[in-house]
Protein backbone atom coordinates (compact mmCIF):
# COMPACT_ATOMS: atom_id res chain seq x y z
CA UNK A 1 0.00 0.00 0.00
CA UNK A 2 1.35 3.42 -0.87
CA UNK A 3 1.63 6.05 1.83
CA UNK A 4 1.22 9.73 0.92
CA UNK A 5 1.75 12.64 3.29
CA UNK A 6 1.58 16.24 2.18
CA UNK A 7 4.54 18.02 3.75
CA UNK A 8 4.15 21.47 2.27
CA UNK A 9 1.43 23.08 0.21
CA UNK A 10 1.25 26.75 1.19
CA UNK A 11 3.70 27.95 -1.46
CA UNK A 12 1.73 28.56 -4.68
CA UNK A 13 4.84 27.55 -6.70
CA UNK A 14 4.58 23.87 -5.78
CA UNK A 15 3.80 21.15 -3.26
CA UNK A 16 5.92 18.63 -1.40
CA UNK A 17 4.71 15.15 -0.71
CA UNK A 18 6.18 12.13 0.96
CA UNK A 19 5.35 9.15 -1.21
CA UNK A 20 6.48 5.71 -0.10
CA UNK A 21 9.36 7.28 1.83
CA UNK A 22 10.47 9.49 -1.10
CA UNK A 23 10.39 13.28 -0.81
CA UNK A 24 8.92 14.66 -4.02
CA UNK A 25 8.32 18.29 -4.93
CA UNK A 26 5.89 19.03 -7.75
CA UNK A 27 6.67 22.36 -9.41
CA UNK A 28 4.06 24.51 -11.12
CA UNK A 29 4.35 25.18 -14.88
CA UNK A 30 5.10 28.90 -14.39
CA UNK A 31 8.08 28.04 -12.16
CA UNK A 32 9.66 25.48 -14.50
CA UNK A 33 12.20 27.76 -16.17
CA UNK A 34 13.20 29.34 -12.87
CA UNK A 35 13.69 25.93 -11.27
CA UNK A 36 15.72 24.51 -14.15
CA UNK A 37 17.97 27.58 -13.98
CA UNK A 38 18.24 27.32 -10.19
CA UNK A 39 19.61 23.76 -10.13
CA UNK A 40 22.43 24.86 -12.45
CA UNK A 41 23.65 27.77 -10.29
CA UNK A 42 27.12 27.09 -8.76
CA UNK A 43 26.24 28.41 -5.29
CA UNK A 44 23.27 25.98 -5.12
CA UNK A 45 25.66 23.14 -6.06
CA UNK A 46 28.04 24.26 -3.33
CA UNK A 47 25.21 24.30 -0.79
CA UNK A 48 24.21 20.75 -1.84
CA UNK A 49 27.84 19.63 -1.68
CA UNK A 50 28.27 21.03 1.84
CA UNK A 51 24.98 19.28 2.76
CA UNK A 52 23.39 22.62 3.66
CA UNK A 53 20.51 21.77 1.34
CA UNK A 54 19.41 18.20 0.54
CA UNK A 55 20.65 16.51 -2.63
CA UNK A 56 18.10 17.30 -5.33
CA UNK A 57 17.41 15.80 -8.76
CA UNK A 58 14.86 16.52 -11.44
CA UNK A 59 12.87 13.34 -12.12
CA UNK A 60 13.17 12.11 -15.72
CA UNK A 61 10.00 12.65 -17.76
CA UNK A 62 9.21 8.92 -17.86
CA UNK A 63 9.18 8.71 -14.11
CA UNK A 64 7.15 11.89 -13.83
CA UNK A 65 4.48 10.33 -16.09
CA UNK A 66 4.51 7.13 -14.05
CA UNK A 67 4.04 9.16 -10.88
CA UNK A 68 1.14 10.99 -12.51
CA UNK A 69 -0.56 7.66 -13.18
CA UNK A 70 0.12 6.35 -9.71
CA UNK A 71 -1.24 9.48 -8.05
CA UNK A 72 -4.17 10.02 -10.40
CA UNK A 73 -6.62 9.14 -7.61
CA UNK A 74 -5.61 12.24 -5.60
CA UNK A 75 -8.42 14.58 -6.53
CA UNK A 76 -6.87 17.69 -4.99
CA UNK A 77 -3.62 17.37 -6.94
CA UNK A 78 -4.17 18.52 -10.51
CA UNK A 79 -1.16 17.04 -12.27
CA UNK A 80 -1.69 19.15 -15.36
CA UNK A 81 -0.72 22.22 -13.23
CA UNK A 82 2.77 20.84 -12.68
CA UNK A 83 5.64 20.85 -15.12
CA UNK A 84 8.24 18.83 -13.29
CA UNK A 85 9.05 16.94 -10.15
CA UNK A 86 12.12 17.24 -7.96
CA UNK A 87 13.25 14.43 -5.71
CA UNK A 88 15.02 15.52 -2.54
CA UNK A 89 17.18 13.43 -0.26
CA UNK A 90 15.05 12.60 2.81
CA UNK A 91 16.14 13.97 6.18
CA UNK A 92 16.21 11.05 8.64
CA UNK A 93 13.89 12.53 11.27
CA UNK A 94 11.97 15.77 10.69
CA UNK A 95 11.60 18.00 13.75
CA UNK A 96 9.91 21.34 14.33
CA UNK A 97 10.81 24.47 16.33
CA UNK A 98 8.43 23.52 19.16
CA UNK A 99 10.64 20.48 19.74
CA UNK A 100 13.92 22.37 19.72
CA UNK A 101 16.08 23.64 22.54
CA UNK A 102 16.79 27.41 22.21
CA UNK A 103 20.34 26.50 21.08
CA UNK A 104 18.85 24.79 18.02
CA UNK A 105 16.65 27.76 17.06
CA UNK A 106 19.72 29.97 17.48
CA UNK A 107 21.74 27.69 15.19
CA UNK A 108 18.91 27.69 12.62
CA UNK A 109 18.83 31.51 12.70
CA UNK A 110 22.60 31.79 12.12
CA UNK A 111 22.35 29.23 9.34
CA UNK A 112 19.51 31.08 7.56
CA UNK A 113 21.48 34.35 7.57
CA UNK A 114 24.64 32.56 6.40
CA UNK A 115 22.74 31.18 3.40
CA UNK A 116 21.26 34.62 2.63
CA UNK A 117 24.70 36.23 2.63
CA UNK A 118 26.22 33.42 0.52
CA UNK A 119 23.57 33.66 -2.20
CA UNK A 120 23.39 37.46 -2.21
CA UNK A 121 26.49 37.68 -4.45
CA UNK A 122 24.76 35.53 -7.07
CA UNK A 123 21.71 37.80 -7.13
CA UNK A 124 19.63 35.22 -5.29
CA UNK A 125 17.42 35.73 -2.27
CA UNK A 126 15.08 33.81 -0.01
CA UNK A 127 11.34 34.30 -0.37
CA UNK A 128 10.78 33.50 3.27
CA UNK A 129 12.81 33.06 6.44
CA UNK A 130 11.17 30.76 8.94
CA UNK A 131 12.50 27.94 11.14
CA UNK A 132 10.07 25.58 9.37
CA UNK A 133 12.46 25.78 6.40
CA UNK A 134 15.15 24.13 8.50
CA UNK A 135 15.43 20.50 9.57
CA UNK A 136 18.27 18.93 11.50
CA UNK A 137 20.42 16.02 10.34
CA UNK A 138 21.90 15.07 13.73
CA UNK A 139 22.97 18.48 15.01
CA UNK A 140 23.54 19.90 11.52
CA UNK A 141 20.91 22.25 10.11
CA UNK A 142 19.63 21.64 6.58
CA UNK A 143 17.68 24.18 4.52
CA UNK A 144 14.87 22.18 2.94
CA UNK A 145 12.70 24.73 1.14
CA UNK A 146 14.16 24.62 -2.36
CA UNK A 147 11.42 26.83 -3.79
CA UNK A 148 12.33 29.59 -1.36
CA UNK A 149 15.33 30.51 -3.53
CA UNK A 150 14.41 33.29 -5.93
CA UNK A 151 16.21 35.51 -8.38
CA UNK A 152 16.60 38.93 -6.84
CA UNK A 153 16.21 42.28 -8.53
CA UNK A 154 19.82 43.52 -8.10
CA UNK A 155 18.60 47.01 -7.19
CA UNK A 156 16.17 45.79 -4.52
CA UNK A 157 17.41 47.12 -1.18
CA UNK A 158 14.83 45.53 1.12
CA UNK A 159 14.98 42.04 2.58
CA UNK A 160 11.31 41.06 2.25
CA UNK A 161 11.36 38.28 4.90
CA UNK A 162 12.93 40.65 7.49
CA UNK A 163 9.76 40.88 9.64
CA UNK A 164 9.19 37.13 9.39
CA UNK A 165 12.77 36.43 10.48
CA UNK A 166 12.29 38.71 13.47
CA UNK A 167 8.93 37.09 14.36
CA UNK A 168 10.00 33.49 14.03
CA UNK A 169 13.64 33.53 15.12
CA UNK A 170 14.68 36.62 17.03
CA UNK A 171 11.62 37.38 19.15
CA UNK A 172 11.11 33.76 20.32
CA UNK A 173 14.83 33.68 21.27
CA UNK A 174 14.51 37.06 23.01
CA UNK A 175 11.43 36.06 25.00
CA UNK A 176 13.06 32.77 25.90
CA UNK A 177 16.17 34.57 27.09
CA UNK A 178 14.48 37.44 28.94
CA UNK A 179 11.21 35.91 30.14
CA UNK A 180 12.18 32.21 30.27
CA UNK A 181 9.19 31.23 28.11
CA UNK A 182 9.87 27.80 26.54
CA UNK A 183 9.87 27.59 22.75
CA UNK A 184 7.13 24.92 22.67
CA UNK A 185 4.75 27.33 24.40
CA UNK A 186 5.46 29.90 21.69
CA UNK A 187 5.43 27.74 18.56
CA UNK A 188 2.60 25.40 19.51
CA UNK A 189 0.38 28.44 19.99
CA UNK A 190 1.63 30.65 17.18
CA UNK A 191 3.03 28.99 14.08
CA UNK A 192 4.25 32.32 12.78
CA UNK A 193 6.16 33.32 15.93
CA UNK A 194 5.68 36.50 17.91
CA UNK A 195 4.80 39.99 16.77
CA UNK A 196 6.80 42.89 18.26
CA UNK A 197 3.46 44.07 19.72
CA UNK A 198 3.06 40.75 21.62
CA UNK A 199 6.54 41.03 23.09
CA UNK A 200 6.11 44.73 23.93
CA UNK A 201 3.39 43.73 26.39
CA UNK A 202 5.78 41.34 28.14
CA UNK A 203 8.53 43.94 28.60
CA UNK A 204 8.47 46.94 30.85
CA UNK A 205 10.68 49.72 32.22
CA UNK A 206 14.38 49.66 31.39
CA UNK A 207 14.01 46.42 29.40
CA UNK A 208 12.36 48.42 26.61
CA UNK A 209 15.58 50.31 25.93
CA UNK A 210 17.95 47.31 26.06
CA UNK A 211 19.72 47.18 22.65
CA UNK A 212 17.95 44.11 21.18
CA UNK A 213 14.57 44.94 22.69
CA UNK A 214 14.71 48.55 21.53
CA UNK A 215 15.25 47.82 17.84
CA UNK A 216 13.31 44.54 17.59
CA UNK A 217 10.35 45.35 19.81
CA UNK A 218 10.01 48.94 21.03
CA UNK A 219 10.61 50.85 17.80
CA UNK A 220 8.56 48.53 15.52
CA UNK A 221 5.68 48.61 18.04
CA UNK A 222 5.73 52.37 18.21
CA UNK A 223 5.98 52.67 14.42
CA UNK A 224 3.03 50.34 13.95
CA UNK A 225 0.97 52.70 16.10
CA UNK A 226 1.65 55.68 13.86
CA UNK A 227 -1.51 56.78 12.11
CA UNK A 228 -1.47 55.28 8.63
CA UNK A 229 -3.77 55.59 5.70
CA UNK A 230 -4.34 52.56 3.45
CA UNK A 231 -2.27 54.32 0.79
CA UNK A 232 0.68 54.76 3.16
CA UNK A 233 0.51 51.17 4.19
CA UNK A 234 0.53 49.81 0.65
CA UNK A 235 3.46 52.13 -0.13
CA UNK A 236 5.46 50.61 2.72
CA UNK A 237 5.29 47.21 1.05
CA UNK A 238 6.19 48.42 -2.44
CA UNK A 239 9.59 47.31 -3.70
CA UNK A 240 12.15 50.02 -3.00
CA UNK A 241 14.86 50.28 -5.61
CA UNK A 242 18.27 51.69 -4.89
CA UNK A 243 19.96 53.95 -7.48
CA UNK A 244 22.63 51.31 -8.12
CA UNK A 245 23.29 47.57 -7.69
CA UNK A 246 26.33 48.27 -5.48
CA UNK A 247 24.28 50.42 -3.15
CA UNK A 248 21.45 47.83 -2.89
CA UNK A 249 24.00 45.11 -2.09
CA UNK A 250 25.73 47.34 0.48
CA UNK A 251 22.41 48.05 2.23
CA UNK A 252 21.25 44.43 2.21
CA UNK A 253 24.60 43.19 3.50
CA UNK A 254 24.43 45.67 6.37
CA UNK A 255 20.83 44.71 7.21
CA UNK A 256 21.75 41.01 7.24
CA UNK A 257 24.93 41.64 9.26
CA UNK A 258 22.87 43.71 11.72
CA UNK A 259 20.59 40.71 12.14
CA UNK A 260 23.65 38.51 12.68
CA UNK A 261 24.65 40.81 15.54
CA UNK A 262 21.20 40.41 17.10
CA UNK A 263 21.49 36.63 16.75
CA UNK A 264 24.89 36.68 18.49
CA UNK A 265 23.42 38.72 21.36
CA UNK A 266 20.62 36.20 21.73
CA UNK A 267 22.94 33.18 22.12
CA UNK A 268 21.19 31.09 24.80
CA UNK A 269 23.06 30.64 28.06
CA UNK A 270 23.69 27.09 29.20
CA UNK A 271 20.65 26.61 31.44
CA UNK A 272 20.49 24.57 34.61
CA UNK A 273 17.47 22.66 35.81
CA UNK A 274 16.89 20.05 38.51
CA UNK A 275 17.71 17.41 35.89
CA UNK A 276 20.95 18.79 34.38
CA UNK A 277 23.10 17.39 37.21
CA UNK A 278 21.08 14.20 37.62
CA UNK A 279 23.93 11.87 36.66
CA UNK A 280 26.45 13.73 38.81
CA UNK A 281 24.44 14.05 42.01
CA UNK A 282 24.39 10.30 42.71
CA UNK A 283 20.79 10.59 43.91
CA UNK A 284 19.60 7.47 42.19
CA UNK A 285 22.86 5.54 41.78
CA UNK A 286 26.13 5.17 43.65
CA UNK A 287 29.24 5.56 41.49
CA UNK A 288 29.61 1.77 41.30
CA UNK A 289 25.98 1.26 40.38
CA UNK A 290 26.24 3.82 37.62
CA UNK A 291 29.36 2.09 36.26
CA UNK A 292 27.53 -1.25 36.30
CA UNK A 293 24.59 0.30 34.44
CA UNK A 294 26.95 1.84 31.88
CA UNK A 295 28.71 -1.52 31.34
CA UNK A 296 25.41 -3.35 30.82
CA UNK A 297 24.07 -0.78 28.35
CA UNK A 298 27.35 -0.64 26.44
CA UNK A 299 27.45 -4.43 26.15
CA UNK A 300 23.87 -4.53 24.89
CA UNK A 301 24.57 -1.79 22.35
CA UNK A 302 27.65 -3.63 21.10
CA UNK A 303 25.63 -6.82 20.86
CA UNK A 304 22.59 -5.33 19.08
CA UNK A 305 24.45 -2.81 16.86
CA UNK A 306 21.36 -0.58 16.49
CA UNK A 307 21.19 1.55 13.37
CA UNK A 308 18.45 3.92 14.52
CA UNK A 309 17.85 4.35 18.20
CA UNK A 310 15.32 6.37 20.17
CA UNK A 311 16.40 7.32 23.70
CA UNK A 312 13.30 8.15 25.73
CA UNK A 313 13.94 10.35 28.78
CA UNK A 314 17.54 10.84 27.73
CA UNK A 315 18.48 13.47 30.37
CA UNK A 316 21.85 14.98 29.37
CA UNK A 317 22.32 12.07 27.00
CA UNK A 318 25.03 9.93 28.63
CA UNK A 319 23.57 6.81 27.00
CA UNK A 320 22.63 8.54 23.74
CA UNK A 321 26.29 9.50 23.39
CA UNK A 322 27.30 5.90 24.12
CA UNK A 323 24.91 4.70 21.38
CA UNK A 324 26.13 7.31 18.88
CA UNK A 325 29.74 6.38 19.63
CA UNK A 326 28.71 2.83 18.69
CA UNK A 327 27.48 3.99 15.26
CA UNK A 328 23.78 4.40 16.01
CA UNK A 329 21.88 7.35 14.59
CA UNK A 330 20.11 8.63 17.70
CA UNK A 331 17.00 10.67 18.38
CA UNK A 332 17.06 11.60 22.07
CA UNK A 333 13.97 13.01 23.77
CA UNK A 334 13.33 14.57 27.14
CA UNK A 335 10.73 16.99 28.47
CA UNK A 336 13.36 19.27 29.99
CA UNK A 337 14.64 21.92 27.58
CA UNK A 338 17.79 22.55 29.67
CA UNK A 339 19.03 18.94 29.40
CA UNK A 340 18.26 18.86 25.67
CA UNK A 341 20.24 22.09 25.23
CA UNK A 342 23.17 20.57 27.15
CA UNK A 343 23.09 17.40 25.03
CA UNK A 344 22.83 19.41 21.80
CA UNK A 345 25.93 21.42 22.69
CA UNK A 346 27.87 18.26 23.55
CA UNK A 347 26.74 16.35 20.46
CA UNK A 348 27.54 19.30 18.18
CA UNK A 349 30.97 19.81 19.75
CA UNK A 350 31.83 16.14 19.29
CA UNK A 351 30.09 15.79 15.88
CA UNK A 352 27.88 12.95 17.12
CA UNK A 353 24.87 11.74 15.17
CA UNK A 354 22.33 12.71 17.82
CA UNK A 355 19.15 14.73 17.31
CA UNK A 356 18.06 15.89 20.77
CA UNK A 357 14.43 17.02 21.00
CA UNK A 358 12.23 18.51 23.70
CA UNK A 359 9.44 15.94 23.71
CA UNK A 360 7.52 14.76 26.75
CA UNK A 361 6.73 11.12 25.96
CA UNK A 362 3.50 11.23 27.99
CA UNK A 363 2.34 14.32 26.11
CA UNK A 364 4.18 14.16 22.78
CA UNK A 365 3.97 16.86 20.10
CA UNK A 366 0.57 16.70 18.41
CA UNK A 367 -0.21 16.81 14.68
CA UNK A 368 -0.89 20.47 13.99
CA UNK A 369 -1.42 22.95 11.22
CA UNK A 370 -4.01 22.75 8.47
CA UNK A 371 -6.35 19.76 8.85
CA UNK A 372 -4.17 18.62 11.77
CA UNK A 373 -1.90 17.12 9.15
CA UNK A 374 0.65 19.78 8.21
CA UNK A 375 3.21 18.90 10.88
CA UNK A 376 2.82 15.31 11.96
CA UNK A 377 2.79 14.23 15.58
CA UNK A 378 5.96 12.87 17.13
CA UNK A 379 4.36 9.42 17.35
CA UNK A 380 3.40 9.38 13.64
CA UNK A 381 6.90 10.49 12.61
CA UNK A 382 8.43 7.76 14.80
CA UNK A 383 6.45 4.92 13.28
CA UNK A 384 8.73 2.26 11.82
CA UNK A 385 11.86 4.42 12.21
CA UNK A 386 13.70 3.00 15.22
CA UNK A 387 15.07 -0.52 15.42
CA UNK A 388 15.96 -0.03 19.09
CA UNK A 389 14.34 1.98 21.86
CA UNK A 390 16.14 2.84 25.07
CA UNK A 391 14.01 3.58 28.14
CA UNK A 392 16.36 3.88 31.07
CA UNK A 393 15.00 4.88 34.47
CA UNK A 394 11.96 6.48 32.91
CA UNK A 395 8.94 4.19 33.34
CA UNK A 396 8.49 5.08 37.03
CA UNK A 397 8.15 8.74 35.99
CA UNK A 398 5.61 7.73 33.35
CA UNK A 399 3.61 5.41 35.60
CA UNK A 400 3.74 7.48 38.80
CA UNK A 401 4.18 11.15 37.84
CA UNK A 402 2.08 10.99 34.67
CA UNK A 403 -0.13 8.08 35.83
CA UNK A 404 0.16 6.08 32.59
CA UNK A 405 -0.67 2.41 33.23
CA UNK A 406 2.03 -0.23 32.58
CA UNK A 407 -0.21 -1.78 29.89
CA UNK A 408 -0.26 1.47 27.90
CA UNK A 409 3.50 2.04 28.30
CA UNK A 410 4.28 -1.53 27.18
CA UNK A 411 1.99 -1.21 24.14
CA UNK A 412 3.52 2.16 23.17
CA UNK A 413 7.10 0.90 23.61
CA UNK A 414 6.27 -2.00 21.27
CA UNK A 415 4.91 0.48 18.70
CA UNK A 416 7.97 2.74 18.92
CA UNK A 417 10.50 0.00 18.17
CA UNK A 418 10.64 -2.26 15.18
CA UNK A 419 12.84 -4.76 17.02
CA UNK A 420 14.54 -4.25 20.36
CA UNK A 421 13.73 -2.54 23.63
CA UNK A 422 16.27 -1.89 26.37
CA UNK A 423 14.27 -0.87 29.39
CA UNK A 424 15.14 -0.27 33.03
CA UNK A 425 12.65 -1.37 35.64
CA UNK A 426 12.59 0.65 38.87
CA UNK A 427 10.83 -1.13 41.73
CA UNK A 428 8.52 0.58 44.28
CA UNK A 429 11.26 0.13 46.95
CA UNK A 430 13.69 2.37 45.04
CA UNK A 431 14.39 5.72 46.83
CA UNK A 432 13.60 7.78 43.70
CA UNK A 433 10.39 5.84 43.18
CA UNK A 434 9.42 6.51 46.82
CA UNK A 435 10.27 10.18 46.40
CA UNK A 436 7.99 10.70 43.41
CA UNK A 437 5.17 8.62 44.96
CA UNK A 438 4.88 11.35 47.64
CA UNK A 439 3.23 9.14 50.21
CA UNK A 440 0.68 7.58 47.86
CA UNK A 441 2.37 4.18 48.20
CA UNK A 442 -0.83 2.15 48.08
CA UNK A 443 -1.73 3.51 44.64
CA UNK A 444 1.48 2.22 43.08
CA UNK A 445 2.41 -0.82 45.20
CA UNK A 446 1.17 -3.15 42.42
CA UNK A 447 3.95 -2.01 40.04
CA UNK A 448 6.17 -4.96 41.00
CA UNK A 449 8.80 -6.76 38.97
CA UNK A 450 6.46 -9.74 38.36
CA UNK A 451 3.71 -7.46 37.13
CA UNK A 452 6.16 -5.57 34.89
CA UNK A 453 7.39 -8.82 33.31
CA UNK A 454 3.87 -10.17 32.85
CA UNK A 455 2.79 -7.00 31.00
CA UNK A 456 5.87 -6.53 28.81
CA UNK A 457 6.05 -10.18 27.75
CA UNK A 458 2.64 -9.76 26.11
CA UNK A 459 4.37 -7.69 23.46
CA UNK A 460 8.00 -8.82 23.69
CA UNK A 461 10.18 -11.88 24.18
CA UNK A 462 12.45 -11.49 27.16
CA UNK A 463 16.09 -11.89 26.06
CA UNK A 464 18.02 -10.86 29.17
CA UNK A 465 17.67 -9.26 32.60
CA UNK A 466 20.47 -7.77 34.70
CA UNK A 467 20.65 -5.93 38.02
CA UNK A 468 21.70 -2.28 37.51
CA UNK A 469 21.08 -1.02 41.05
CA UNK A 470 19.77 -2.22 44.39
CA UNK A 471 16.17 -1.91 43.14
CA UNK A 472 16.72 -1.56 39.43
CA UNK A 473 16.98 -4.05 36.56
CA UNK A 474 17.83 -3.62 32.89
CA UNK A 475 15.84 -5.79 30.47
CA UNK A 476 16.48 -6.58 26.87
CA UNK A 477 13.32 -7.42 24.97
CA UNK A 478 12.71 -8.40 21.37
CA UNK A 479 9.39 -7.49 19.81
CA UNK A 480 7.00 -10.39 19.15
CA UNK A 481 5.71 -10.76 15.60
CA UNK A 482 2.43 -8.94 15.18
CA UNK A 483 -0.42 -11.27 14.39
Amino acid at each position, binding site marked *: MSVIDFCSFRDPSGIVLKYNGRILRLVKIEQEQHLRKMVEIPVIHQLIKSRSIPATDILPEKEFKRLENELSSLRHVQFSDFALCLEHEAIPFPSYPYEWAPEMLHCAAEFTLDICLKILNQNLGLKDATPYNILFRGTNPVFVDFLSFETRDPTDQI*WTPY*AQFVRTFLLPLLVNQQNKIPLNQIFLNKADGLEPENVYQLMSGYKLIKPSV*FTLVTLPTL*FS*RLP*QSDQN*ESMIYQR*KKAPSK*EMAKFILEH*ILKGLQKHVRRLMPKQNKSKWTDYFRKEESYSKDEFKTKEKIVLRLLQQLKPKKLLDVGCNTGHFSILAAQNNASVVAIDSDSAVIGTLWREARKSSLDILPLVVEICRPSPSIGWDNAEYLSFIKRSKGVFDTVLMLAVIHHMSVTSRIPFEAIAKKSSELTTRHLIIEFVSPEDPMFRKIVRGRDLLYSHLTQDYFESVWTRYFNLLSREQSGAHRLIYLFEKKDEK
Partner: protein
Amino acid sequence: MLSLFLILFSLIHDSLHAYTDPGTGSMIWQLLMAAGFGLLFYARRIIDWVKSLWSKDISIKDADNKE
Protein backbone atom coordinates in the same frame (compact mmCIF):
# COMPACT_ATOMS: atom_id res chain seq x y z
CA MET B 1 18.73 56.69 20.07
CA LEU B 2 17.31 57.34 23.53
CA SER B 3 16.07 60.80 22.61
CA LEU B 4 14.43 59.41 19.44
CA PHE B 5 12.71 56.84 21.61
CA LEU B 6 11.50 59.41 24.12
CA ILE B 7 10.12 61.68 21.39
CA LEU B 8 8.33 58.80 19.67
CA PHE B 9 7.09 57.44 22.96
CA SER B 10 5.62 60.76 24.07
CA LEU B 11 4.01 61.28 20.67
CA ILE B 12 2.34 57.99 20.10
CA HIS B 13 2.39 55.80 23.16
CA ASP B 14 -1.29 56.30 23.93
CA SER B 15 -2.55 56.58 20.42
CA LEU B 16 -4.22 53.38 19.32
CA HIS B 17 -5.59 53.09 15.84
CA ALA B 18 -7.85 50.86 13.87
CA TYR B 19 -6.37 47.83 12.17
CA THR B 20 -2.76 48.10 11.10
CA ASP B 21 -0.85 45.15 9.75
CA PRO B 22 1.31 43.77 12.57
CA GLY B 23 4.36 43.57 10.31
CA THR B 24 4.19 47.27 9.44
CA GLY B 25 6.34 48.46 12.35
CA SER B 26 9.22 46.11 11.43
CA MET B 27 8.93 47.13 7.78
CA ILE B 28 9.11 50.85 8.64
CA TRP B 29 12.16 50.17 10.81
CA GLN B 30 13.82 48.29 7.95
CA LEU B 31 13.08 51.19 5.58
CA LEU B 32 14.68 53.62 8.02
CA MET B 33 17.72 51.35 8.38
CA ALA B 34 17.96 51.08 4.58
CA ALA B 35 17.89 54.89 4.35
CA GLY B 36 20.62 55.13 7.01
CA PHE B 37 22.83 52.55 5.26
CA GLY B 38 22.17 54.37 1.97
CA LEU B 39 23.61 57.55 3.50
CA LEU B 40 26.55 55.56 4.86
CA PHE B 41 27.14 54.20 1.34
CA TYR B 42 27.35 57.75 -0.07
CA ALA B 43 29.46 58.96 2.88
CA ARG B 44 31.96 56.17 2.23
CA ARG B 45 32.08 57.02 -1.48
CA ILE B 46 32.76 60.67 -0.66
CA ILE B 47 35.49 59.70 1.84
CA ASP B 48 37.07 57.34 -0.73
CA TRP B 49 36.90 60.09 -3.38
CA VAL B 50 38.57 62.63 -1.05
CA LYS B 51 41.20 60.05 -0.11
CA SER B 52 41.93 59.34 -3.77
CA LEU B 53 42.26 63.09 -4.46
CA TRP B 54 44.61 63.41 -1.46
CA SER B 55 46.79 60.48 -2.57
CA LYS B 56 46.83 61.81 -6.17
CA ASP B 57 47.83 65.23 -4.85
CA ILE B 58 50.68 63.72 -2.81
CA SER B 59 51.92 61.56 -5.69
CA ILE B 60 51.92 64.61 -8.05
CA LYS B 61 53.84 66.67 -5.47
CA ASP B 62 56.32 63.78 -5.01
CA ALA B 63 56.79 63.60 -8.77
CA ASP B 64 57.33 67.41 -8.95
CA ASN B 65 59.90 67.27 -6.14
CA LYS B 66 61.78 64.48 -7.89
CA GLU B 67 61.93 66.55 -11.09
